[in-house]
């Protein structure tokens, strides 16, 4: 426990993060948490190994921290991948909170990205390294909490990831050009199936392509699949494109790359169903975004997916193409089921809203930093 004296300046709760990006879950979480910490009365800055150009004014390079250090500082490490920041924090003496967002295990990159496989293995070692230093481990989900405890964290709490879900809801009107394109395609018939996530082996976009192939063959020859998200796995992307072409689905599968918030809102607005067949999910922010947008969710039950969606998705135990196709068909054609999923989603979203999560995260941080002044 570490707090400044009653007459001293407010205690600072600084965050460290491997990479501060504007469009990924960890980056968004870090920025929102910084605002929450400041709002609660703590001083708070962000220190990162890599900082996206758009966020250059929001953070400092982590090795500059000693210039900012003050007695009573508390550190929060946003752990999402291997980084030199972990080694840096291991050498420091300030009280540490590890906020664990999980990382995709090396097994998911085997044969695809040798450097990423190695990095994932290092991430696990770093998680263990920091266990002895951390006074508290925070996890997005009970699934992630289990990993924390396995890594040696004895004091843990579950606090869902902070997300401003407004970017796909009322906060961001759909991009008109994208919306018009999607509307033209929709007018020709066929369901629109959506998945949002980085194109990497663990997100298993190839399983989505297989499901689309089966769905078109069995039920709806005009159905389309939209894969929204950038990639860091070009080998996987190339294989995916080859697979799509070989199945004759080049006109039916759209790989968008990274898109703006307004374009993302247009994809959600046009989707008949949100389908996730990921092999690994530590939380699954887009599942909740689909609920915000009123899109029914069908998802493979892996990792933290079940606790993220609770009863607001049709959870599937397997990813057999025929099984997935039948489930998607059911959601597209059964209005009762569809409404039930959408309504359950609307009930689920407020539980994960900033208003709901912020007091919990402040309470958790206060157990290490003391009450803010």
């Amino acid at each position, binding site marked *: 426990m570490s707090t400044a004296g009653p007459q001293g300046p407010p205690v600072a709760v600084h965050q460290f993060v491997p990479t501060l990006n504007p469009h990924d879950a960890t980056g968004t979480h870090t920025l929102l948490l910084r605002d929450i910490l400041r709002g609660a009365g703590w001083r708070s800055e962000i220190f990162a190994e890599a900082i996206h150009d758009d966020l250059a004014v929001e953070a400092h390079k982590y090795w500059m921290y000693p210039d900012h250090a003050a007695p009573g500082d508390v550190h929060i490490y946003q752990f999402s991948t291997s980084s030199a920041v972990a080694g840096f924090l291991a050498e420091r003496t300030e009280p540490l909170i590890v906020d664990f967002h999980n990382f995709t295990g090396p097994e998911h990159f085997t044969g695809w990205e040798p450097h990423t496989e190695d990095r994932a293995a290092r991430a696990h070692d770093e998680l263990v390294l920091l266990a002895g230093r951390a006074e508290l481990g925070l996890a997005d989900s009970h699934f992630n909490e289990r990993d924390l405890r396995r890594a040696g964290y004895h004091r843990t709490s579950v606090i869902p990831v902070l997300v401003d879900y407004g970017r796909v809801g009322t906060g961001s009107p759909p991009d008109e050009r994208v919306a018009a394109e999607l509307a033209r395609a929709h007018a020709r018939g066929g369901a629109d199936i959506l998945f949002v996530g980085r194109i990497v082996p663990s997100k298993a976009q190839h399983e989505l392509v297989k499901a689309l*192939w089966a769905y078109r063959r069995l039920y709806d020859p005009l159905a389309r699949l939209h894969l929204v998200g950038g990639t860091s796995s070009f080998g996987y992307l190339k294989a995916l494109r080859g697979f799509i072409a070989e199945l004759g689905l080049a006109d039916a599968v759209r790989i968008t790359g990274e898109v703006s918030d307004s374009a993302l809102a247009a994809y959600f607005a046009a989707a008949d169903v949100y389908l996730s067949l990921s092999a690994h999910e530590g939380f699954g922010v887009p599942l909740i975004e689909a609920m915000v947008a009123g899109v029914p969710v069908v998802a493979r039950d892996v990792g933290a997916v079940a606790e993220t969606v609770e009863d607001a998705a049709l959870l599937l*135990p*397997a990813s057999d*193409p025929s099984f997935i196709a039948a489930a998607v*068909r*059911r959601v597209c*054609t059964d209005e*009762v089921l569809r409404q039930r999923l959408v309504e359950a989603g609307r009930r689920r979203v407020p539980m994960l809203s900033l208003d709901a999560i912020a007091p919990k995260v402040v309470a958790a941080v206060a157990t290490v930093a003391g009450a803010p002044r």
Partner: protein
Amino acid sequence: MTATPASPEMAESEPAAVTDPQAYVAQVMAEIEEEVRLRRTSGDLPPKLERELDELFLAHSPVAGRGGDLTEALRMVDAATFVDPVVPVDSERAAGAVVKKGMRTVLLWYVGWITHQVSQFASAVSRTLHIVEGRLKELERKVEVQRVPSAGVVELPAVHGAEAWWVDPAVDAVKSTPGRIVHAASGDGWLVRKIIAAGGDAYGVDPRTNLVDQGVLTVSDLRGEDLADHLRAVAPAGLGAIVLSGVVDGMASGEREQLLRLIAVTLAPGGVLVVHSLSRSSWDSADAPYEADLAPGRPLRADTWRQLLDQNGYQATVSSGPGEADYLVTAVRATLPPSEPTLAR
């Protein structure tokens, strides 16, 4: 959002069913499974075709399939050794192609210089790998005669069926486990059906794809793959229980150790491992299946299993079948220390 017309096979749910959400979802899932079964039975989408989709995708992967052929992988390395500096200039936007072409022209002297060196480096790596491949092949030829084959599935009709003595205790041990339950070797899904009927969330794995193809007509979640390969693809602590029958009996010690390591990773704390094995006397009897003769190993004694599992953090109990022809080991994996109360929800 509009949806395409419903197929005749799939009736729309009755709104009344929504009053009990859990029962409603269970009903929907059952109807989906029935729909899949009908489709498969009718030949609309045979399981074999679904497997071919996997093979088709793996053909595009950089390793030409997990654990794929080295020669084929090297062919892909060779194909990728040349780095083309002349980037495509197609564009969906007017004038985009012109702008891109202009940039390409301006940058080509620089990019071309870099890519030439990268191509040279890649060619050198490729040549080296071909030399390594040649030497590996030579080594493989020499060690081939000492190779230990993988154990196949060894089953006796009398003890590997729904009526066998050990089936009910095995189902009781796993049916309430939180998390998924995998049975290997699942055959046509006879034990998977029993576990599901008892309330467990089970699926099956079996390398004998002919049996899996028959089974998927009645059980939707059967996978035609080797157990070890399957466990490598499962997330850590992703399984609530693992039931093994006909799998471990003839394993060589190395293969068995590898399997136990995989189970240690994939079985959740507090999860249940059930092992059914023939005894050594059954293994050596005249009516033992021919696979027993061909297997690289012999069944362990039941107490050896108990010892082995106890040493690896399980609490194991053993029961023997009639005439000690076979035995059942039920082991519960140690749990982690209890979690502190959470702040979520």
